[in-house]
């Protein structure tokens, strides 16, 4: 048990499937007997906006959100979102990034530039692990499981065993997709 609450954040672009990932996280922590709080974004921001999910676990969790300078693990499903939320990490926090670029509207319309060298810059101040999960998922034959590959990579930095993760995934995802999701998890876990 943690006497200090642990903080995890999942950030991405609305529609990328952050909610499934947070459901798996919530399930594994409750099974381990922790007090858990998760906070999600629904509604308008889900339409392609910047979305963030907070997950906190420990003996007794009060506030449901993770704030600036408090995240132990930051899981970013997109590069720009990693940069947007990097200041939420603790100094010794770990940053997991899906190396994918999705242009926000100000970039699409040419009003602003998508920053170059995000991962290189972040690596100067943070511990960064990255994967092109979209590409890996495509190779596996199902582009939708990219988020579980990213989760697999992040899982190495949390306090649960591989078997615990696999069994929770089995319980959480739709029955038809159990196998591909397990494979996707192991792909990320093995990186």
């Amino acid at each position: 048990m943690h006497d200090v609450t642990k903080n995890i954040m999942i950030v991405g672009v609305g529609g990328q499937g952050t909610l499934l990932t947070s459901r798996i996280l919530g399930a594994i922590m409750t099974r381990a007997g922790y007090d858990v709080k998760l906070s999600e974004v629904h509604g308008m921001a889900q339409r392609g906006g910047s979305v963030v999910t907070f997950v906190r676990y420990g003996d007794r969790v009060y506030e449901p959100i993770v704030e600036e300078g408090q995240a132990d693990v930051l899981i970013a499903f997109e590069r720009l979102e990693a940069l947007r939320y990097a200041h939420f990490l603790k100094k010794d926090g770990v940053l997991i990034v899906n190396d994918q670029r999705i242009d926000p509207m100000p970039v699409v319309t040419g009003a602003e530039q998508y920053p170059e060298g995000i991962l290189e810059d972040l690596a100067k101040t943070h511990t960064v692990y990255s994967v092109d999960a979209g590409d890996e998922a495509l190779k596996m034959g199902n582009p939708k499981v990219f988020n579980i590959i990213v989760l697999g990579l992040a899982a190495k930095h949390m306090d649960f065993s591989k078997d615990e993760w696999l069994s929770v995934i089995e319980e959480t995802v739709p029955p038809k997709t159990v196998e591909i999701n397990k494979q996707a998890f192991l792909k990320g876990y093995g990186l």
Partner: protein
Amino acid sequence: MEKKVMLGNAAIARGAYEAGVKVSAAYPGTPSTEISENLVNYPEIYCEWSPNEKVACEVAIGASMSGVRAMCSMKHVGLNVASDPLYTASYIGVNGGFVLVVADDPGLYSSQNEQDTRMIGRASMVPVIEPSDSEEAKEFLKYSFELSEKYDTPVIMRTTTRLGHSQGVVTLKDREDIPDKPYEKNIQKNVMMPGMAKKRHLYVEERLKKMAEDGHDFPINRIEWGDKKVGFITSGIAYQYVKEVCPEASVLKLGMVHPLPKSLVAEFAKEIETLYIFEELEPVIEEQVRAMGIKCIGKEIFTVQGEYSANMLRKALNKETDIADAAKVPARPPILCPGCPHRSVYTALKKLKLHAAGDIGCYTLGAVAPLNVVETAVCMGSSISTLHGMEKAKGKEYVRDWVAVIGDSTFLHTGVNSLMNMVYNKATGTVLILDNSTTGMTGHQDHAATGKTLMGESTYAIDIPALCRAMGIEHVVCVSSFDQEELVRVLKEETAREEVSVVICQAPCALLKGQVFPYKCRPLPEKCMKCGACLRPGCPAITKNSDGTVYINQTMCNGCNLCAQMCKFGAIERVLAGK
């Protein structure tokens, strides 16, 4: 007992189940929608989507009058629509318990204003209960039903976005066996004519006084004694931030925020050296505490705007925070999805330089770049009536280059009466009903024109074109939202007409379940003249390459063909996916 991690809104549905609720009615609205979506898991409860919150509230009133426990749920602005029945239901009281769950949205995650439901509770003289996590959401709802029946009053349980959309551990209990009460004719209580209402008004005032006194001993109001140098009076999610930042302080945690249990407040305040009132949005508790002559610190250091957090409290108390600066990065505002039919309609409006009076839904996003066609948005149903007001103010010619745009669900919510008004009062404007076969923004709920009920049954689907014709509108035209040529032709024709006309733009929401997208759009770089026309509608699946040609993300593209229709050079082709 089984424990489960539950979304606040799912916990409220569970609470309704455990409280023995029999009837629930609602209209979808972030952050309240998931309450009804979870209620369908309990076949013991009849639940429905009503066309709007007023109807939902009245359905619940009727069910309560008949003698069963009933509830309705809505977002904060939904309570404005339902406030007409609410104010008088307050006089009538209940037979079976009656609770309104109303979800506020501090920080405006998905709303048009930041109003505080506690103020409506005070104005309508209805008690307001406020939980602070999922477990409390479930238990406080059950307690609200007990209060409702004990004090013969409707009860508002107020939640916020952060509560409804946070998950926490909940202990599952059994459904209580609440026997139906008999219905007894009682016009003194159930018919609010002036003679009856005068007497009931006096009862309502007495009821509030009694509840304020009894509130001293309600288990949902509690004092957590700690260091008495600093004390907080707080409620709801704000309580969690106090515990996070000042675990040593004394706290009066109010579960009932209206009426204020004043004797408990006085008892707490007299022991505390420095008293803070920490409440999101308006100073509802603070002003009453001050009126009691108690010195306290509140909105002079805590904002009335936006959502609270632990860091916000730390900063307000001048506690040290070690926060790095945020990187300066391009914003990522919400946008219309790839394959969204609204984008195509707005592209046609833009081409014709038409202005749009807008409404509430995903299509409000037509107000921002790159579409920039929607110029007004007030509340549900307002597009049609604001257009009408403009015409009456400035004349027929003025609205020849205006249209109203309203979604199918919003039209059925409160647009119908506005359209009736246009016909009745001889307007000449054009109304576009953007019919995407669902309530889109809140996550695809059925409505009266989809042919499905909340509980999944097939039902009669209201025929929207026939409904408009029945009002006496001769020109009701249906057009595919994705057919640019036809859209442009119809819009030119209908806006020129000096009588009310309705254009129903039809195409399902791109995210609606069960849809098949057989096509993908692909650029043909050799034909591309690099003019950027395909980029103008702002589809997130299309980006510009460094050489000026375009890239279409094949995973995101739904093959709607809008970009291909924008291209004069045939440089985008639509092909069967996988070919």
